[in-house]
């Protein structure tokens, strides 16, 4: 390259020298003119030759580089003449180092692509886990922006999951207490800290639900700085209801047990203390004790039977029975209670030869419970009618117990057979455990595959009944 440049300089110098000699050619042609002319011609020829040669070399090099670029391959560039070897080498070095850089970058890009795929898969996996959790999950970043939430959270706080991403938590949640809890947790800066709070959230439909909120701080792996907060809201509404129902049940059962027990204890003490001075009073006391003991026994039977039927442990002994006979037996037992309230009992029963396949004790229990309820919810001086009907065509036998009692409000009617359910409007009329009708339903439908029904007009009375298959 340097030699090429030298040749160009030399030829330009010689050309200038030749041109300077022209006046002398004219003036002193014979003396120095000839030699100058020769010198000028030589210089011009050398310069032209050199320029042509340089251009050819450069074109060849450019062509090779262009070919390599077109093929997208790193090829070796060769110089034709020695003068251009350093240039070719320099180009080759440059190409090779560029190729290495590109190769490194491609490799790094591939690595990053794999890392991104792994990270995406992990995130999708984590999201899938969070979405599948039935508890509401909220994840916020150090700026209290919501970064992740699941469907359950969207339902709980009534927000659009698709639009909630990366929004400040106070814009998404309408619950000040939950927002404050998330902020406090983030500010507490405790990487391993956990806080559990019970809180009620008002849903979109206005219904309040109780949640157990577990808040944890998520720390950054590298610098241990809190990276955000995870809040998991577990809906405890149902659990609380069940716990309340259990408490109510225990309280009701204990009340129901104490009431007959109170009579038994008091009357026995009165007899011991000689407070009943004549035989008539003594007999009356003994009867009270007996009736109250029976009442206690019925209550315990109800509790045990319902628990046995529900747990599937009950031993069922089905035989051909007359529903009319069972109804008559139950009527005899309930008669003293009805008499105590001056309630008229009347019966319209089918002949006893109509039989049904049933567990006698259980069916008796069901009829007794219905009769007992009728007495409980019928004011003094009312009437109770007991009926059985046979439909021979359909092979069915139906029992009806109708009263002139307080009746059941329409809103309560669908729930009267639910366990622990008590009609609030009538709760002062009589005490109960909310188990009697539930047991009747179990006995008729679960044990005997029959059908139970209720018709009622508030203030006028109710009819409870059931239908069973007639025995062949």
């Amino acid at each position, binding site marked *: 390259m340097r030699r090429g440049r030298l040749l160009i300089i030399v030829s330009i110098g010689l050309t200038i020298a030749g041109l300077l000699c022209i006046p002398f050619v004219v003036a002193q042609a014979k003396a120095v003119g000839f030699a100058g002319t020769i010198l000028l011609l030589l210089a011009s020829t050398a310069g032209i030759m050199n320029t042509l040669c340089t251009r050819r070399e450069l074109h060849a090099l450019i062509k090779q580089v262009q070919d390599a670029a077109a093929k997208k391959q790193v090829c070796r560039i060769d110089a034709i003449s020695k003068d251009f070897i350093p240039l070719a080498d320099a180009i080759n070095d440059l190409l090779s180092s560029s190729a290495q850089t590109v190769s490194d970058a491609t490799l790094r890009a591939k690595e990053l692509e794999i890392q991104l795929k792994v990270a995406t898969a992990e995130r999708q996996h984590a999201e899938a886990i969070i979405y599948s959790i039935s508890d509401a999950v909220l994840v916020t970043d150090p700026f209290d922006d919501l970064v992740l939430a699941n469907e359950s959270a969207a339902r709980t706080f009534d927000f659009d999951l698709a639009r909630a991403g990366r929004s400040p938590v106070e814009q998404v949640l309408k619950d000040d207490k939950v927002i404050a809890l998330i902020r406090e947790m983030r500010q507490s800066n405790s990487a391993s800290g956990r806080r559990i709070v019970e809180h009620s959230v008002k849903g979109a439909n206005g219904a309040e639900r109780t949640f157990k909120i577990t808040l944890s701080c998520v720390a950054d792996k590298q610098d241990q700085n809190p990276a955000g907060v995870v809040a998991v809201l577990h809906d405890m509404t149902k659990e609380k209801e069940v716990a309340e129902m259990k408490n109510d049940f225990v*309280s009701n059962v*204990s*009340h129901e047990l*104490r*009431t007959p*027990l*109170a*009579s*038994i*204890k*008091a*009357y026995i*003490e*009165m007899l011991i*203390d000689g*407070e*009943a001075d004549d035989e008539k009073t003594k007999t009356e006391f003994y009867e*009270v004790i007996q009736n*109250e003991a029976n009442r206690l026994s019925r209550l315990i039977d109800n509790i045990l039977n319902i628990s046995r039927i529900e747990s599937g442990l009950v031993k069922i002994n089905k035989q051909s029975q007359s529903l009319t006979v069972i109804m008559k037996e139950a009527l005899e037992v309930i008669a003293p209670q009805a008499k*105590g309230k001056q309630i008229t009992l009347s019966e319209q029963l089918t002949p006893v030869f109509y039989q049904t396949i049933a567990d006698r004790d259980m069916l008796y229990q069901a009829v007794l419970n219905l009769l007992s309820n009728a007495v409980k919810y019928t004011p003094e001086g009312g009437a109770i009618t007991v009926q059985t009907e046979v439909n021979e065509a359909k092979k069915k036998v139906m029992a009806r117990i109708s009263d002139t009692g307080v009746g059941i409000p329409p809103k309560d009617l669908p729930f009267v057979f639910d366990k622990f359910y008590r009609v609030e409007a009538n709760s*002062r*009329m009589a*005490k109960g455990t909310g188990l009697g009708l539930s047991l009747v339903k179990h006995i008729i439908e679960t044990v005997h595959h029959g059908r139970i029904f209720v018709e009622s007009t508030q203030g006028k009375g109710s009819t409870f009944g059931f239908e069973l298959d007639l025995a062949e």
Partner: protein
Amino acid sequence: MSEKTILVADDESHILHVVSLKLRNAGFRVLTARDGQEALEMAQQNHPDLLITDYHMPQLSGLELCQRLKQDTKTNDIPAIMLTARGYHLEPSDTEQSGILRMLSKPFSPRHLLTTVNEVLEGKAA
């Protein structure tokens, strides 16, 4: 000592009967009511020396009955004993707001009830 009148309110007829008999045998004049509303009216008309009431009763609960009597200047001096099958505990505020001086839990002893009645009437319970 003049004959004291005691009003007994309970929706359980057996309890009403046994308590009345125990008190009558002890020389008291006894009035009975089957629910809270009836008891309220009887208390207003007869101004008994003592009220023995069940907690859970139709129409008006025992606690509401006592509170209503306490609010009325004509009946606010009637002391009360409450009989209850619920695990209800007597709070100091109950005495102030309702005049309930003693709480007896069912099942109860008629003997113990009589002792309590005498204590309340003699002013020992206050």
